[in-house]
């Protein structure tokens, strides 16, 4: 993984010193809250319902064991013993005191981490495929380009006060695990005639007006991609709406101009760049950064592990976990492991300090020092030998991390909701946990198969309800919480927005309604191999809607 050199280290250190000064000026009253706000936001500090919340950047979801241990220490020493992993592959702490934040940032800097641009109207943490570097279907490891984009976007002097926040996602695999079509910019790395380039999508997003991104350019050669991104950013910075924060995202600019006119403006700006404006990143610098992401030296192993097969035969729970939580690795004899942060009854994405310590240890001992955060709010050990899976599972299970539910119905993406968040209209975690209970029987859940439920506590859609196969959206109607159900969303390469299927339900009615929809699917599917989303597509929404509202 990437390691800081003198330049990275100095930039982060200077940022810590700068923010220490800003916090001191705020605490002394010299800075007004209104003026402090954009500064703290660009350091990941939000003022939430109960306290300040600190969001720490995990660039493209990549962590070393040392870094994850440091996060565990922060959870233990400055929070209440847990942290919350987010859909941006970041981590949030909800109970850190403002006066302590400069110290926390200093501790992060010691392990090459920071909270830069994790909020505010700037370019946020770039996200990617959580199996990057291990997946069989990628054309190259996208993390090097994510790191290049991280550096380019960090303290970019022109784009720190954009109309609104800006999120970039990168994938290099045919199956899109990074949800690039619902990002402000989605990049798909491709190879064409021996050249590496980027398919560029712009203007996707969720929130109150969800959009699937427009394909703006099918192939921008890698040597030009930063200049092309500059053109995209400049058109947005100059012409994005600033009169209404709800219409300020780039998706609104793209849709109001129309795709053709928007593309014309970007191409015109790109063509207008003079030689002195070009970033001109040397190929040697690209190669230098790629070298940090060289694949680990995985010892040759047989494709079939006798140890693994014996353990599966002996322990049905372990066998079920291997069926759910493993992803094929490009090297025979290895797998990528999903450590589910969605056990029953726990806020999705939460991990305790002890759990973080354990995963760090496992990553060090069995995972070649490589740990990822997925946008589905789980942790990943991308390179684990099949022979080691039984011992890894046993350790995880003993720590409450043995849930066998990756991409299953209880592996929900859920925002913090009204329990924590200022913006929320409704609680989301309690509803998610109530739905989880209906599907608590592991055999039943496995029979249902792949099914994404995403839950948001308001229309800002932090829980990605628009792109869940089933989406649940909390709304407030005259002081009472209601939940609208959406069907048919997906975030992958066939990205689609779910449709609201009818009037909202009371919280107590949601679990049974979801249960009816799932039972309808099980009755109608052509075989257990036909996934929920495929049955839904084949039959249409109307009959699922009937099931949803069938009198209980």
């Amino acid at each position, binding site marked *: 993984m990437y390691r800081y*050199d003198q*330049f*990275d280290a*100095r*930039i982060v250190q*200077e*940022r810590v*010193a*700068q923010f220490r000064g*800003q916090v001191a000026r705020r605490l002394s009253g010299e800075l007004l809250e209104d*003026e402090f706000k*954009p*500064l703290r936001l660009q350091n990941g500090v939000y003022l939430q319902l109960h306290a300040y919340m600190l969001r720490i950047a995990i660039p493209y979801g990549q962590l070393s064991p040392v870094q994850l241990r440091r996060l565990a220490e922060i959870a233990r020493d400055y929070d209440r013993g847990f942290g919350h992993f987010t859909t941006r592959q970041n981590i949030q702490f909800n109970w850190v005191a403002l006066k302590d934040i400069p110290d926390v940032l200093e501790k992060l800097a010691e392990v090459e981490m920071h909270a830069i641009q994790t909020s505010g*109207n700037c370019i946020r943490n770039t996200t990617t495929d959580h199996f990057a570097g291990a997946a069989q279907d990628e054309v190259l490891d996208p993390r090097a380009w994510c790191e290049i984009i991280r*550096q*380019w976007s*960090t*303290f*970019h*002097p*022109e*784009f*720190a*006060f*954009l109309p609104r926040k800006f999120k970039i996602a990168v994938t290099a695999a045919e199956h899109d695990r990074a949800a690039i079509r619902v990002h402000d910019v989605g990049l798909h790395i491709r190879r064409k005639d021996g050249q590496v380039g980027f398919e560029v999508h712009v203007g996707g997003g969720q929130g109150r007006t969800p959009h699937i991104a427009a394909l703006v350019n099918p192939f921008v050669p890698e040597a030009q991609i930063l200049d092309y991104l500059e053109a995209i950013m*400049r058109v947005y*910075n*100059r012409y994005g709406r*600033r009169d209404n924060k709800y219409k300020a995202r780039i998706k609104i600019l793209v849709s109001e101009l129309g795709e053709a006119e928007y593309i014309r403006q970007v191409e015109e700006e790109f063509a*207008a*760049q*003079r030689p*002195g*404006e070009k*970033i*001109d*990143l*040397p190929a*040697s*610098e690209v190669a*230098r950064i790629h070298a940090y992401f060289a694949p680990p030296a995985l010892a040759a192993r047989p494709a079939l592990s006798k140890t693994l097969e014996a353990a599966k035969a002996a322990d049905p729970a372990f066998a079920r976990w291997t069926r759910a939580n493993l992803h094929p690795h490009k090297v025979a004899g290895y797998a990528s492991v999903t450590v589910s942060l969605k056990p029953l009854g726990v806020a999705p994405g939460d991990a305790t300090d002890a759990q973080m310590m354990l995963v760090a240890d496992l990553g060090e001992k069995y995972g070649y020092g490589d740990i990822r955060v997925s946008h589905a709010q789980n942790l990943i050990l991308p390179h684990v030998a099949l022979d080691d899976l039984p011992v890894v599972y046993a350790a995880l299970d003993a720590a409450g991390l043995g849930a066998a539910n990756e991409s299953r119905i209880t592996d929900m993406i859920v925002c913090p909701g009204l329990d924590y968040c200022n913006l929320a209209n409704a609680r989301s975690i309690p509803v998610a946990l109530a739905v989880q209970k209906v599907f608590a029987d592991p055999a039943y859940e496995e029979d249902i198969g792949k099914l994404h439920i995403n839950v948001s506590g308001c229309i800002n859609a932090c829980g990605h309800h628009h792109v869940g196969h089933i989406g649940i959206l909390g709304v407030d109607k005259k002081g009472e919480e209601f939940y609208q159900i959406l069907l048919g969303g997906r975030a992958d390469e066939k990205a689609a927005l779910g449709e609201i299927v009818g009037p909202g339900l009371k919280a107590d009615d949601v679990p049974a309604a979801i249960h009816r929809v799932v039972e309808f699917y099980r009755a109608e599917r052509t075989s257990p191999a036909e996934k929920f989303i495929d049955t839904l597509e084949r039959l249409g929404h109307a009959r699922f809607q009937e099931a949803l509202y069938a009198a209980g």
Partner: protein
Amino acid sequence: MPLVKGGAEIANDWTFVPDGAALPESGRFSVSFSRFLGLKLGQENGPLPDGVRLAPVDDPAQLEPFLPDLALIEVDFPRYTDGRGFSQAQLLRRRYGYSGEIRAVGHVLRDQIFYMHRSGFTAYETRRATVSEVLEALAEFTEAYQPAADGPGAAFRKRTGA
């Protein structure tokens, strides 16, 4: 309201003349973008200014033919959250080759000044910052990742010795 340029506070010998007000016969002054273009194109008669003030919507491309005549371009930030002025300055410096003073006016806060400096600003009229704070802000970062109009060169160039 201090005006800081070249590492020190300087006297402001420029006057901004609002639209509709009479133009002075002597002294240095700036006018709005539309009035500047009107005077240059002969739609209004009067002394020709060598200063102009850009609002966020103004397009620096239209100034290109007149840049050799300009000694001052003021970029107005009506609200600090409106970042269009950063693009205007970058365009003036890097695309159109303007080399005179670019001055940030309006809601200019201490903590934007480093970004302004890198975007090509050379003078800052600051509402709530002292001279020493402005100078402190300019020195807060000694390295930068990306090329820009001014300030530290890009880290990748230093790394590769390019």
